[in-house]
């Protein structure tokens, strides 16, 4: 095997360490929602896709029913399917390695991998596997730390944990608002979610907001 392209390794590791630390916020949010430390860690090992995990525990924390929590997580998970479609022909792996590749197919591994395209397909593969594997490692370690930490802190409001969770969502949302149109989608979604809150059972407004995406994405702009 050729030596690893240094720039690719640097890109992969800097991204992994940064997003890995978000795991602290997830571990804390999960425990604050009522999940145990073990359950929080299993989320990060088995689900391993940040926004979906945050959504599932977020809906539970806001008093939503189990079905709403799972549906919100699954809707956010659909983009990983689209990433897989892009990554599969580039990775060209079979059998167990393909299943492992699927589990590691998330925003960051796909993002770093595709950003390596100008450096060639080998750099794409290194970028994908290295980012996927190291995000997996950091995400899980930091989830454990966050979960243990939150368990030790107790009442979420005492330490501001109940505000840290929506702030984490805002932090995940912010970099996606790349145009005025997308900021419009976000603003519309927030207004919609507030408007339907008194009329729907807890947790359901989050799922219902997918209608805003359907309405605004229906026609070509």
């Amino acid at each position, binding site marked *: 095997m050729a030596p690893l392209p240094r720039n690719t390794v640097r890109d992969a590791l800097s991204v992994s360490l940064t997003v890995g630390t978000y795991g602290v916020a997830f571990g804390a949010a999960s425990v604050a929602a009522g999940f145990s430390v073990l359950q929080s860690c299993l989320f990060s090992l088995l*689900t391993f896709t940040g926004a979906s995990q945050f959504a599932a525990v977020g809906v539970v924390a806001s008093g939503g029913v189990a079905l709403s929590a799972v549906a919100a997580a699954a809707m956010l998970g*659909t983009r990983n399917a689209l990433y897989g479609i892009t990554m599969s022909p580039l990775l060209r792996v079979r059998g167990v390695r393909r299943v492992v590749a699927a589990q590691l197919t998330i925003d960051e591994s796909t993002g770093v991998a595709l950003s390596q395209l100008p450096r060639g397909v080998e750099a794409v593969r290194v970028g994908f596997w290295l980012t996927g594997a190291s995000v997996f490692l950091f995400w899980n370690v930091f989830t454990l730390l966050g979960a243990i930490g939150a368990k030790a802190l107790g009442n979420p409001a005492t330490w501001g944990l109940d505000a840290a969770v929506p702030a984490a969502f805002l*932090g995940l949302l912010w970099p996606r608002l790349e145009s005025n149109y997308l900021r419009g989608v976000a603003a519309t979604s927030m207004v919609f*979610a507030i408007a339907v809150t008194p009329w729907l059972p807890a947790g359901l407004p989050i799922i219902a907001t*997918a209608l805003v995406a359907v309405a605004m994405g229906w026609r070509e702009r």
Partner: protein
Amino acid sequence: MSATLLWTVLIATSALCFSLKLVGHYVPERWFALPRLQRINALIPIALLSALVVAQGLVLKTHVVIDHRLAGLAAALVALILKAPFPVVVVAAAVTSALVYHLH
């Protein structure tokens, strides 16, 4: 939520999210070629994350409530506008919210 339901959420979420990842790697590309589906899918994270900000920051059960969490959220917004890294955003929100909570 009961312990059984929490386990159900964990297992169902993990199974569905992993299945979606597998689908991407095993299903022929043309199945997802519909432009409308792709446009909507690109907006889903923005819509849901926006709703989650509101649901977690402004809602208790089925009521819109203004409390210490909104102060924390405002601090997070300021941090983001100042291009602060993610951990700073979250900590700024937590500290501000906790301060307002204890002052009341």
